[in-house]
């Protein structure tokens, strides 16, 4: 290189600056920590029980590649139209944007993507080669559907045995139309069938199909759900005018209108109770929900409770039924007892304890009891381990009987939600795959989720969460048509734009721009390379990265070495 020599003041520039770039100074020797590119998990992805790759498909949404976005969701969840509507979206609870200006409306975008692909759709083909083994699935609820679907992606043929006349489980017979229209469910089930999954309806194991018939399969997945309403255990529960929530909702969803009086009382605090109450309201009745604890302990999805309140459902807390009485075999009155909250029980919620002598009565033409559902496992041979009312399974969803797997509401640790059933189906499919002698592809190294403080919010202007379009309360309480609407394309794009894309590099060039040593470069394929000859480990790139897609590792650490080999 040329050496410049100034001999006089006059020749010198006004400011001392190098006449060439500083590349000849290998500042890399100053470094004791090393920046590396490392995509991390987003908290939403880690939290979604189905494991949807949320930041990945949001990026596709932003590029308006809606089909690709849908395909991305379908890798983990065959029912996005369903979860986009009824999932309790724990993902949003952990969203890093929550503490900034409101969580991203993840499940609304999920629904938008599903609905955007409602017409002219074709599922991606199976990912693995066809296998000869066949698997039986008992129950066509979300757990069964998810398992059969993932099995077909893995190349297996599967047959679903369904006791009912139509598939879907609680998605069809439990969750009402105003939350989940049947055409959405039908479409997603059709898709699964189109992959070669056979659904045999009106086929109840232990009834018209013998358990022994399943012996010809190489593996079985038990996903029979929890379809039996728990008994109240109070005298008079068999009187006319007393329904179980499940029966009541099932009647409605098969197109019949159950006979109900003007004054409807619903017992319970879960989704079934709320859905029964809102459904009865839509039949023009005065509805009161009676729950033995308080509002905060109600297990139903909080938004649903709010909706019910808005629509005019009444609530009475801290009461429990003692006796139902009536005349001519028909219920007309219910005796209740007041409760108070005591010590927390094993669920962590405070246990309700009766207040002795606090009994009182309420008039009622119709009583709907929805105090919980339990599985009917009577078709199973004795050899199966149980825990309480449920079938025992371990983390791999094995039952202890070789080749028999189980999951969803019928099995232990079910959490009793759609998305957990979908997760169980997916995980069981992988376990079955491994049981049949294959090694499943791991998802790669999983790092911790990006923490809120790792997001550089400087890059994200404040922008409130989208207001979900819906029909008015006046209208919603009189009709079974869907309450919430799908986001418009514009809303969905704005909302997807709000996502920080935690932990996934978006090739925004920020790291490269900020590097004071110009040590980061980008090749034609868009990949970044750090020139460790010059990177002095200041960490500015890592600090500046809007989304925590970089990391500083101690110099000489194993990760650092690996990373370099990678590059």
């Amino acid at each position, binding site marked *: 290189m040329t050496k410049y020599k100034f001999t006089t003041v006059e020749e010198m520039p*006004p*400011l001392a*600056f190098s006449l060439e770039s500083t590349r000849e100074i290998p500042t890399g020797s100053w470094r004791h920590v090393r920046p590396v590119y490392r995509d991390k998990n987003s908290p939403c992805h880690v939290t979604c029980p189905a494991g949807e790759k949320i930041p990945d498909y949001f990026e596709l949404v932003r590029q308006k590649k809606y089909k690709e976005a849908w395909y991305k969701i379908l890798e983990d969840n065959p029912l996005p139209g369903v979860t986009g509507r009824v999932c309790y979206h724990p993902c949003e609870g952990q969203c890093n944007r929550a503490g900034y200006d409101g969580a991203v409306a993840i499940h609304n975008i999920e629904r938008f993507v599903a609905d955007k692909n409602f017409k002219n759709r074709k599922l991606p083909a199976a990912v693995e080669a066809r296998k000869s083994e066949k698997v039986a699935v008992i129950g066509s609820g979300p757990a069964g559907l998810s398992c059969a679907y993932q099995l077909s992606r893995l190349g297996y043929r599967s047959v679903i045995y369904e006791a009912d006349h139509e598939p879907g489980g609680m998605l069809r017979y439990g969750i009402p139309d105003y939350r989940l229209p049947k055409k959405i469910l039908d479409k997603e089930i059709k898709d699964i069938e189109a992959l070669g999954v056979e659904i045999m309806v009106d086929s109840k194991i232990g009834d018209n199909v013998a358990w022994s018939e399943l012996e010809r399969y190489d593996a079985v997945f038990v996903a029979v759900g929890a379809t039996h309403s728990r008994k109240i255990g109070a005298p008079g529960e068999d009187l006319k005018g007393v329904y179980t929530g499940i029966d009541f909702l099932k009647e409605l969803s098969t197109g019949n209108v159950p006979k109900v009086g003007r004054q409807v009382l619903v017992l319970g605090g879960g989704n079934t109770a709320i859905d029964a109450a809102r459904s009865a309201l839509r039949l023009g009745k005065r509805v009161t929900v009676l729950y033995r604890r308080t509002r905060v302990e109600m297990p139903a999805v909080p938004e649903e409770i709010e909706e019910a309140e808005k629509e005019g459902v009444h609530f009475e807390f801290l009461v429990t039924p003692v006796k139902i009485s009536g005349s001519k075999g028909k219920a007309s009155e219910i005796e209740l007892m007041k409760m108070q909250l005591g010590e927390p029980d094993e669920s962590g919620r405070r246990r309700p304890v009766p207040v002795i002598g606090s009994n009182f009565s309420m008039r009622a033409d119709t009583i709907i009891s929805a105090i919980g559902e339990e599985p009917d496992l009577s078709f199973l041979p004795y050899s199966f381990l149980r825990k309480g009312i449920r079938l025992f399974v371990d983390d791999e969803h094995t039952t202890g009987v070789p080749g028999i797997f189980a999951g969803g509401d019928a099995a232990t640790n079910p959490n009793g939600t759609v998305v957990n059933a979908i997760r169980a189906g997916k995980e069981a499919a992988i376990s079955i795959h491994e049981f049949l002698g294959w090694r499943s592809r791991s998802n790669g190294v999983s790092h911790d989720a990006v923490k809120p403080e790792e997001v550089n919010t400087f890059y994200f202007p404040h922008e409130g969460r989208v207001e979900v379009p819906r029909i008015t309360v006046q209208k919603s309480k009189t009709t079974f048509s869907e309450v919430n609407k799908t986001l418009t394309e514009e809303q969905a794009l704005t909302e997807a734009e709000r996502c920080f894309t935690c932990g996934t590099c978006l090739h925004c060039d920020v790291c490269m721009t900020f590097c004071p040593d110009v040590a980061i470069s980008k090749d034609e394929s868009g990949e970044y390379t750090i020139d460790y000859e010059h990177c002095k480990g200041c960490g500015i790139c890592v600090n500046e990265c809007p989304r925590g897609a970089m990391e500083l590792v101690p110099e000489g650490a194993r990760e650092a070495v690996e990373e370099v080999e990678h590059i």
Partner: protein
Amino acid sequence: MMEKNVANTKRDGLLHPSIDKVVVIEGTHAASHAVKLARVQVIAAYPITPQTSVVEKLSEIVSDGDLDAKFIKVESEHSAMACCIGSSISGARAFTATSSQGLALMHELLHWAAGSRLPIVMVNVNRAMAPPWSIYVDHNDSLSQRDTGWLQFYAESNQEVTDTVLQAYKIAETVSLPVMINLDAFVLSHTSEPVALPKQEIVDEFLPARKASFKIDTSDPKAFGALIGPEAYMEMRYKLYRAMEDARSVIREVDRDFAEKFGRSYGGLVEEYMTEDAETVLITSATAVSTARIAVDELRSMGFPVGLMKLRVFRPFPVDEVRELAKHVRKIGVMDRNVSFGATGIIYQETKAVLYNAADRPSVFGFIAGLGGRDITPETIKEIFSYLMNHDEPESESVWVSLKTSDADQGARPFPETGAGIRRSEGVK
């Protein structure tokens, strides 16, 4: 604050055609409006009383879309100056404003800005240094930054603030040095006065967009402010020294140019008032000049041959102007609103220093007044004149004016109402 348009160019034929409108605004806003007219591109500042309203107004101007500038909120004055340096080195016109402790916090980067030869303009609202805490005026804050390589202006009126900001960019961009414009806390910063705002087109003619002679260019990466060995450091310093020397004629030229376009002049580095036939002249700066004008008028009406020199520019120091004055006066008094501990008032020192090697050396007296916002009234100035006229030589190196002390020897005496007992004249030199 409401800005009232008090004059109408159409109605009032006396107004200069360059004037867009005359508004009644406080000194800080006089600066903000000038920044807008100068089409500054980057503003970075941290709030400190009494500077806050300078940038507050600018934030409104920028958010209203009236000025196409980047407004950067920073976490300290140090960062504010860093932002100005960064933007200026990339070719932008940059502005910041601060005061007192804030200016002190900037100190390191003041050297950086000047050493990098960046034409940044800063408004400093002069506020006394703490402790004891004070938010009122004196000049120790800016004078402590004497040797950083910044040009320093001291404004007497709100109009002068506006006009000096416009002049400052032109001067700064010509000599490649940063300029600090000082205005007295509250006395000027928060006092409303009519200010003529010039028309944008004429400002644009006077002050075209900046053309940086060197700047950061990402396609030609270089390191700025590089390490330099002993073989060249001194020469770089000499360049800066020369630029400051050259600034004197540039300031005079720009003021003349300004007068031509806008009809107002501030005399370049100094402005003289009734000095032509004066025997005793007071040198002072900033708002005290206005007060001194009143005192001089009064004494003149009583027949005393007194005059006044307003020191508008402190850096570069107006060597020629002071020496010229010395040729025809008998006594010079310097009123400092500052003190250099272990020495005297700073302007007094500098005045004496430039006269030592001059052929004509009148007696030079130093007065310290108005620290920490103590009012300087016409009486204060007259006290100083009484001392000046009744002494042949200074009795001490600095006289603290209106000091609350029981020491009868310390300080000046009130000027007698009729002027009785004050020496009248020793004849013009």
